[in-house]
């Protein structure tokens, strides 16, 4: 039976208004409300459901980040995950942290924890990279099922329905495999009180990237972060003919 490793990331909550730092080096994160990446929530939910259906024996959540990443892990534990691993990354390393490093960390942990399945959200809502699942699979030399909107377990294989631009694609992958969760895979549960209480007693292990033999080396440099251009105001036209003329002018008709 499967041991599932789930990667979760702590990101700025999507309902918060993002502010760019005056020096354009990034966005303001101090004192801003964070929460679990929505796609990662879906990944956690899927893993917990597998355990409830007895398709998995143990679910382990992993998060790379500062101390506050433990809050995100506690949420995962409250949703039904069995144990959590916090890979502590702070300061300059945190600024440098990229999917390539996270993938190396997840790959090492997948081996150490003898995972049969690695599930992550398809992308994080702060960087929109959509790389971690793919790179983790490559490092492990495992098959991948990305943008999963449906996962069915067979005998030693998984049937994945993927959301792609043209519609839906069904693939079969042999386990062990790496999957990434898309929006329509499931609707995550709310963590309820008895589980929130239980989560406090569940094991949370702390490691560093060094413990896993991973060096957080910079491969790229963020040059600047800027606001998108301000949306131009529309104009009200007096009648339909003027509207038709303007549309023609703009090349829309």
């Amino acid at each position, binding site marked *: 039976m499967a041991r599932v490793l789930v990667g979760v990331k702590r990101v700025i*909550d*999507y*309902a*918060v208004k993002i502010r760019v730092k005056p020096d354009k080096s990034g966005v303001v994160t101090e004192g801003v*409300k964070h*929460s679990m990446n*929505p796609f990662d929530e879906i990944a956690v939910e899927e893993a917990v459901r597998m355990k409830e259906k007895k398709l998995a024996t143990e679910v382990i959540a992993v998060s790379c980040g500062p101390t506050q990443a433990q809050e995100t892990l506690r949420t995962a534990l409250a949703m039904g995950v069995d144990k959590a691993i916090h890979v502590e990354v702070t300061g300059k390393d945190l600024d440098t942290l990229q999917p390539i490093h996270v993938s190396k960390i997840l790959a090492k942990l997948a081996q150490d924890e003898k995972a049969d399945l690695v599930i992550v959200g398809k992308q994080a809502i702060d960087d929109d990279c959509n790389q971690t699942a793919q790179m983790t699979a490559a490092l492990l030399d495992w098959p991948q099922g990305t943008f999963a909107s449906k996962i069915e377990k067979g005998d030693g294989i998984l049937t994945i329905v993927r959301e792609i631009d043209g519609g839906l694609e069904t693939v079969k992958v042999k386990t062990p495999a790496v999957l990434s969760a898309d929006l329509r895979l499931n*609707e995550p549960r*709310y*963590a*309820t*009180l*008895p589980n*929130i*209480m239980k989560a406090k007693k569940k094991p949370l292990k702390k490691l560093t990237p060094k413990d896993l033999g991973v060096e957080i080396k910079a491969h790229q440099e963020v040059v600047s972060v800027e606001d998108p251009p301000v949306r131009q105001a529309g104009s009200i036209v007096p009648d*339909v003919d003027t509207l*038709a003329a303007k*549309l*023609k002018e703009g090349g829309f*008709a």
Partner: protein
Amino acid sequence: MQRIYSSSLQKINQISQKCWKSTSTRVELTQVRYPKLKRGNYSVISDKHISTFEKIIPGRVLTSATDDLESFNTDWLRTARGNSSVVLKPKSTEEVSEILKFCNQERLAVCPQGGNTGLVAGSVPVFDEVILNLSLMRKIESIDTASGVIVCEAGCILEELDNVLREKDLMMPLDLGAKGSCQIGGNVSTNAGGLRLLRYGSMHANTLGLIAVKADGTVVDALNCLKKDNTGYALHHLFVGSEGTLGVVTKVAIQCPRVPQAVSLMFLGLSDFASVMETTQRAKGFLGEILSSCELMDLECADAVVQNMKLKLPLERMPFYMLLETSGSNAAHDEEKLNAFLEAVMNQGLVMDGTVITEPSRLKAVWHLRECIAEALLRDGYVYKYDVTLPAQKFYDLVPFFNDKLKEAGALRCCAFGHLGDGNVHFNVTSTEFSYKLLGLIEPSIYEWTSKHRGSISAEHGIGLKKRDFLKFSKTAEAIEMMRDIKQVMDPNGILNPYKVLPAI
């Protein structure tokens, strides 16, 4: 190009027809549904009147000859429809003053209107009153971050004001489900309550001052922005809650609190009302100073939200749900207080299940479950809506009192939700369409019951048209007489929002 344009117009028409289908059945005219109402001795609108209005507010006079006035004439709850043929949209206090001066001279009845989200048919005409709509008066004059005072025009939408204030770390002191449409002038004129009255107080408390125009056009400048000002009678309080019958509010000064650093929301499931009461007491004890909202919804309300709004609840189906919100200045401190409270109520078996939310995205989603109950019930067809204040233990008693008899008579749902912390319950009954029989079974019985238990027949919704005949259940004859005296002084010709608030003589 022409062909493409007209075929997409067709598509738009088709879509809007589909949307309107469920609501396209016109609401019955108020004067037809309530035949006992008699039109007052007011003038009838003439072309001469229209041209004078055009001179005062050029381009902003809507008439039934050229415009569709149905939405101005119909209330949000779809229970009342007036027959006005004129809608005026002034942009300044001066224009409102000129309009009212003229209407007073001509003895034209006027119905002041803001966002038209009122629930007692107070913001729509009964007959052909001229609708004075303040939606174009949307200027924010000033925000003083030191004192937290905002000065703005009456037509500003509540949610928009809150958004602007949040950029300066301030927030509006009130919050209600209608925030996307309701206007501050209306909130002040109805002394609106809402979800956070428990913490931040009523509009009486938060309206420092205002500018209102009397029936004869006189502008009353009571726009004080100071926290403390004891200089004679507090004139602005006269207008707060008078529902447009003593004057038209055009500008307000509101005291705004700071945005809290830490907000948490608990959504709890309970098995019986006794547990709800006990849990409320515990909440006041453990959370006291950080409690910012204490709301209740019963299972029928939750079912309506799930069925009619296609939403999901965080918990399984349970007889009662409570929403407890805390707002504080330190997340860690609040978390400690919350944990102590939750451990206590869980261990004592008061709460069956629950969830705690702190993420902004989730907070909005869960609050929405409570805020959309009114709309969810409306989708059943017709809602008989009541809003009473009762002693704490009696908060839920109306439901068992009425449930069986109303369901037998054809009611779909008989439920209650509301501001548990304030003792203010919203008792609602729904049916597929309006029924005199059901109405007769509820009124005046509900008001008699409320009066007997020393409650208020209208906690926050006001009197409007719908409750004027029942005012006696909460006010003595002498009090009503005094209200008439004041009305006579302020509006001798009775042109401001007639047929509302005061009972027919």
